[in-house]
């Protein structure tokens, strides 16, 4: 059984490592400040004992006033998992740092979020529309998208 690590615990460690990086935490996940995303991700990936080598999925949720990005990490070595979230604000040009340099698996998923939700990922090597065509008007998964 994949053990779910306590998000509070991890959040405390991250806060100690990168002061100011954690916004809040509860029993299921913790929320991270987007500026610390890449260093924190490297920390989670490389720290012995955590070893989150497998980025299971990324997804985005439109919460009207902000976009919530959900990251789900798994460690194949220790068979444990972790969920954390990042908020990005603004409807016009919301952005978050890209995790592609850390986990290549983020590549297509970030492009998909960019395509369907319109969240820009800074530092992504090839950020362009993936499933829809160039010139498509709007981002379909936004709640205010008019089909």
């Amino acid at each position, binding site marked *: 059984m994949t053990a779910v690590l306590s998000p509070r615990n991890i959040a405390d460690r991250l806060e100690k490592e990168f002061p100011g990086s954690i916004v809040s935490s509860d029993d299921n996940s913790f929320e991270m400040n987007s500026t610390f995303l890449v260093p924190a991700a490297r920390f989670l990936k490389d720290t012995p004992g955590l070893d989150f*080598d497998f980025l299971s*999925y990324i997804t985005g949720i439109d919460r009207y006033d902000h976009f919530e990005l959900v990251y789900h990490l798994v460690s*194949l070595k220790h068979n444990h998992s972790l969920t954390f979230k990042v908020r990005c604000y603004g409807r016009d040009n919301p952005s978050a740092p890209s995790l592609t340099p850390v*986990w*290549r698996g983020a590549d297509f998923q970030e492009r998909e979020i960019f395509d369907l939700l319109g969240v820009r990922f800074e530092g992504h090597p090839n950020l362009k529309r993936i499933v829809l065509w160039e010139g498509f008007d709007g981002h379909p998964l936004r709640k205010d998208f008019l089909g």
Partner: protein
Amino acid sequence: MTLKTEPFVVNIGPQHPSTHGVFRLRTTLDGEVIVDVEPIFGYLHRGIEKLAEERTYGGIIPLTDRLDYLASMSNNMGYCMAVEKLAGIEVPERAEYLRVILAELQRIASHLIGVGAFFNDLGAMMTPIVYMIREREKIVDLFEMLCGQRLTYNFMRFGGLSQDIPEEFLPALRKFLDQMPRFIDEYDQLLMDNEIVLARSKDVGVLPAETAINISASGPVLRGSGVKWDIRKADPYSVYDRFEFDIPTGTAGDAYDRYRVKVEEMRQSLRIIEQAVAQLPGGPFRSKVPFLVRPPVGEAYAHIESARGDLGFYLVSDNSIAPYRFHVRAPSLINLTALREMLIGWKVADAIIIFGSIDIVMGEVDR
């Protein structure tokens, strides 16, 4: 003086015999050798994630059928598990066993097509796939017995199945279980040691284990690279922890290993089904679930080992009858992440079989 040739851009797809649907590779070729490639998706993007936001939870089950249309039962199962997790619905034991049987049957059916299509890409003039479809038809018949459909089953419900299995299902299943190992052996005999198959697929399209993990590959692609990771063992869902089975892994991570892993997985699936049939308990096939599910505010993620890998469903509920957000972790899409570097430097003919060995379904890639 060195002889130089001009690289030229060739579009493989979206309508191409070997792209397994509508997939496009914008390749730059130098003679026969691929120097650059850009995969282009979206030719089957139907907006299922958006459509799901305006349907009831139950109404999404038919949509999940059409994600990975070669493994509808697995999709149904993953989605129902996510909703059950979100709404806290209990599943009776009999339903769990039947779900396992159906999901494993579906895995065999899907791998049969996957392996057959792989040989088609190798250029085997339809013969292997015709034989493998012959076997798949037997599984399809079993499913048809349950729900009357051949491809998009829409059979599972929250808290169980839509109906109990008919009387004649188990005898038919036992007959299938008796026959199938012989057929798999026959395919092995005909194909496994074929000199041309070995020459074409050994050491072709190698995906090293570190890269496979880093790109979040899963399923036969990850296991072909030698990583022993299977959700059924690592994070046992349903009643998988009660069965004995092995996780076949490859060593080199080449196209041949991915094909072998699929064949071995069929054998293991047969083992699981045999055990599940032997242990199949009685009792209800579905728990009492309201017609319109209204899960509490929250979110849930459930994942299963589908035929193509780690298939996950992420649901966010706002306590209405439709999900606020419905996300699919599509293994086919994520397995393709390393496609570019797997293809560069190989010839067109190799590109086709590397792509074929990853075994994707476009419905799931584009959603």
